[in-house]
């Protein structure tokens, strides 16, 4: 499904159920206006977020990925965000080698009570992605793509 042309970019969020998803709810309850680009995928814990999901999302053409979990020490599962922090930090530092702006992926911690903070995070991240513009897209299936181009040329 296409993004709203000219208005939105494709931003995907992975949020832990206990803190950040709740924080996003709190922002909603507080009617804290936010940009509409973000689509949230709910997962039980930031520890569930395999960094490969983020790579997959970016390779699938997303313009930005935002991950948010409980603040360190506040994880509902005690340790999930500690693992997540290491893995996501590694990912964040790895992305530039692929030619993907590291700013297309951010991770942060937002608690269930931090509605206002969530609003700020979403707004700031969306602005950051709009500043970066649409992500470079991977060309379609290699060989067939070449053939298609050649056919078009003929």
């Amino acid at each position, binding site marked *: 499904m296409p993004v709203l042309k000219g208005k939105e970019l494709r931003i995907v969020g992975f949020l832990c159920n206990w803190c950040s998803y709740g924080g996003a709810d709190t922002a909603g309850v507080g009617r804290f206006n936010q940009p509409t680009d973000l689509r949230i995928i709910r997962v039980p814990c930031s520890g569930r977020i395999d*960094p*490969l999901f983020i*790579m*997959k999302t970016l*390779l*699938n053409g997303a313009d930005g990925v935002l991950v948010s979990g409980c603040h*360190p*020490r506040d994880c509902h599962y005690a*340790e999930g965000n*500690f*693992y997540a*922090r*290491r*893995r996501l*930090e*590694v*990912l964040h*530092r*790895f992305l*530039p*080698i*692929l*030619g*993907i*702006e590291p700013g297309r992926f*951010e*991770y*942060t*911690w937002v608690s269930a009570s931090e509605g206002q903070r969530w609003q700020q*995070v979403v707004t*700031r*991240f969306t602005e950051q992605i709009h500043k970066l513009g649409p992500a*470079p897209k*991977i*060309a*379609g*299936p*290699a*060989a*067939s793509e070449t053939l298609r181009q050649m056919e078009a040329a003929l």
Partner: protein
Amino acid sequence: MKYQQELKDSIRKALPGLDVVIAWSAGYDPLHATPHFIRREEDIDRLEIGPFSVHNLATYLPGLRGKKVGIVVKGCDSRSVIELLQENLINREEVTIFGFPCTGVVDQTKIRKALGHTGKVDFCQIASQTVVIGLGGEEHKLRLSKVLADKCFSCQYPNALISDHFVGEKISPSVQTEGDDDLEAFEKMPMDERFAFWQKEMDRCIRCYACRNACPMCVCRDHCLAESRDPHWLSQEDSVRDKWMFQLIHAYHLAGRCTECGECQRACPMDIPLLLLKKKMNKEIKELFQYEAGVDPEATPPLLSFKMEEENINEREW
């Protein structure tokens, strides 16, 4: 190689207690060696170690669990053995390790690049720092340092880090800096060029998975995500997206486990510079956690552990 005879003797002594000893022997032409499985006394004579002993034989170990296996390792290979031990993928008591001081192995791609092609090599002699190759009746001289694998220039572990039998004198790590740091150069490229680079490189991938199967740390083997439908991470389409994604899976799954043996890149029939991804991952792991894989069998890979307060992860300003 100086210590070859000593090594053969050592293996000859140990062989009766072992099912197989993995080493190298001459390959299909003077420029190649091949893994050599020694089962019988007479197999020992064919053993050869030297600059063509490129293969990381540790790759075979997990598949031989339950057998008494001897293995000859270069320093870099021994790190893979340590890593496998650390992850309980092999049992220490089942493995007998033969170490020797390694002075470096050649990179076939470099030779090929230097000579144009190496299809018809008649002979190859390596004397001190010079490689003499006979090719289609002509003789070519190459400086050894021009054709050594990149990893050998920065090698800090030329002697096996773990061994039951070590032949020869231990040598000190090289301090040469001749190998060019491709990662550093690559990281100077603009983002869009890097992105384009990988698209171009991954385009020629044929999904043979030699990179994966040659990797000693790719222990999932028959259960790799690459061909699985549940979970269904990749399609079988010949698309850069899927092929690239696989390399990211590979690189990420090796984070904190990869010893940079370079087998992925060496095995790649299409010469895709896959090691670059792993080097980058290792660089970040090292910076973040001061961790190097394959050095300590008792260590825990950094992504399987955590600290409540991480020294080097600044809480995101977000």
